[in-house]
């Protein structure tokens, strides 16, 4: 944008790398601590690089019972994405296609529901679910509640993707004798598939990190996700920091890998929602 001389550009690059390094230091510290031995973790002064690196993945995985935690996280995230995509895609399409007062009201409602804090809704949800007997299926209950929380964001993002699909293509399909559903599924959805995919990935990553609903609705350890499992080990009196950081590293590494792979698309998806 603003043009500058070559050496100045490299100086700026160096500063930028430094800024990123400072910002991402907590992540670096998580990985370094996970690789350190217990004595080295508590060394003073702290070592910036593990001198006797050891991988404790298997020990932590077994001792902290991560298998069931991760499995539950995946079940909850997949269930949430399924509901969100099923209900949200059509709604986003409708909101993108039709301009009317009623659609404006609907969009306003979606935007308002997007901002409701889960920690404030969980009390009435808990009471209602216990009255309905839904607490006997705690993971299902968590999925239903989490999906309602993520649905508005998905609708807003996918709506932006649908507004970029030219209406004419769809009208041509209708002239050719397609039904509305046919045109929607065979023209609009395939053309908006990138936006749908990126939004679904984003919802999936967010649902993997869901905490409040799982913590409140799931009391049986066998059904709790990794966030609740991790919370069990941290807190003001935590001491096994190598173990905790290993747990955290195992848990977030896949999330970070997916994010780095889809980074460009996620960023442009987020910002196109802002420009449209």
């Amino acid at each position, binding site marked *: 944008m603003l043009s500058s001389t070559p050496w100045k550009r490299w100086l700026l690059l160096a500063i*930028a790398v430094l800024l990123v390094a400072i910002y991402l230091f907590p992540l670096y510290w998580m990985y370094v601590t996970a690789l350190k031995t217990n004595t080295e973790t508590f060394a003073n002064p702290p070592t910036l690089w593990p001198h006797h690196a050891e991988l404790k993945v298997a020990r932590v995985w077994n001792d902290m019972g991560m298998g069931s935690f991760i499995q539950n996280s995946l079940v909850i995230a997949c269930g949430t994405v399924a509901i969100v995509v099923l209900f949200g895609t059509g709604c986003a399409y409708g909101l993108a296609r039709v301009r009317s007062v009623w659609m404006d009201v609907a969009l306003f409602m979606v935007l308002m529901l997007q901002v409701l*804090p889960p*920690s404030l809704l*969980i009390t009435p949800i808990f*009471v209602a679910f216990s009255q309905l007997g839904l607490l006997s299926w705690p993971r299902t209950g968590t999925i239903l509640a989490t999906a309602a929380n993520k649905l508005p964001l998905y609708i807003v993002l996918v709506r932006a993707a649908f507004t970029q699909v030219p209406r004419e293509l769809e009208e041509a399909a209708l002239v050719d004798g397609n039904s*509305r559903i046919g045109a929607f599924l065979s023209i609009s959805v395939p053309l908006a598939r990138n936006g749908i995919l990126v939004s679904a990935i984003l919802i999936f990553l967010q649902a993997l990190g869901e905490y409040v609903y799982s913590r409140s609705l799931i009391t049986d350890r066998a059904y709790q996700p990794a966030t609740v499992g991790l919370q069990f080990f941290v807190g*003001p009196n935590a001491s096994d920091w190598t173990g905790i950081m290993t747990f955290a590293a195992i*848990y*977030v590494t896949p999330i970070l890998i997916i994010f*780095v792979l889809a980074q460009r698309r996620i960023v442009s998806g987020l910002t196109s929602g802002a420009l449209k």
Partner: protein
Amino acid sequence: MLRFNRVFRDGGGFDGALVLLALAYLVAFSAFPLIYNLVISFQSVDLFTIATFDRPFVGLENYRDIVNDPLFWPVVRNTILFVGLSVVFQLGIGLALALFFRLDFPGSTWLRGLFLAGWIMPGLVVGAIWGWLLAGDFGVVNWLIQSLGLTQQKIFWLSDPSISIYSVIIANIWLGVPFNMILLSVGLAAIPADVYEAAELDGASRLQRFFTITLPMMRAQLGAVISLGIIFTLQQFDLFAALTQGGPSNASNVLQYWSWELAFREYRIGHGSVVSVFMIIVVIFVATAYVRSTRHEHVV
């Protein structure tokens, strides 16, 4: 059947049905709990009456109990402190970074995107990492400020009642900076370059250009980002669960965490609902301002 086909298979009813389907889901699992929360706040609810439908109504008694609770005002003060400091620093740092990454150098977009790695992390993991960074005896932050000579004693970030709230604020600022930066970058990119060129030709300095062009043209964007910052900060729960759990002895408790503790730790469900009602009123107020400020450019 023909009529059904005309409206839903071929007509505008199709869009309406799709939208209504999702709205029905949202009403059932988001809007209904909102109303139900209000009902519960007027009832006496404990573990024995939770599963029944006829619970005694107690009028405003729950509200009186909460406002007269000795914790109420300290927790309100903490909430204001938490939101105020978080939003100011997230916005300030976010804007500075957005301005910097707008400069012309190789890899600027890619490097800027890396910041979002912080934003995508589960709040609980971020809390766990900051808990370790800020640990009293072996935390690297204490080591750093001691070796820079800023303090002699170790700071007990998580267990000192006068400081614990700031540890959560620091973690929350870290978490919120990337989102602020990306949204502000979008706003900056929308300012046409020729405006700056014209000002430069007229001899406006960098600082003058910032105050006379950048800030005024970013007004809508800044309004949206501030409202979203307040909303996300009021949503923040995971960091409290991971870092201080509102402690020590409620010194770092905020309304959203207190509400949950009342309902799920002390089983004072009616009281928890009252705190939720207060918070939801604030959130709806801010959200209305946000939606209005972005009527034409629906920011995420």
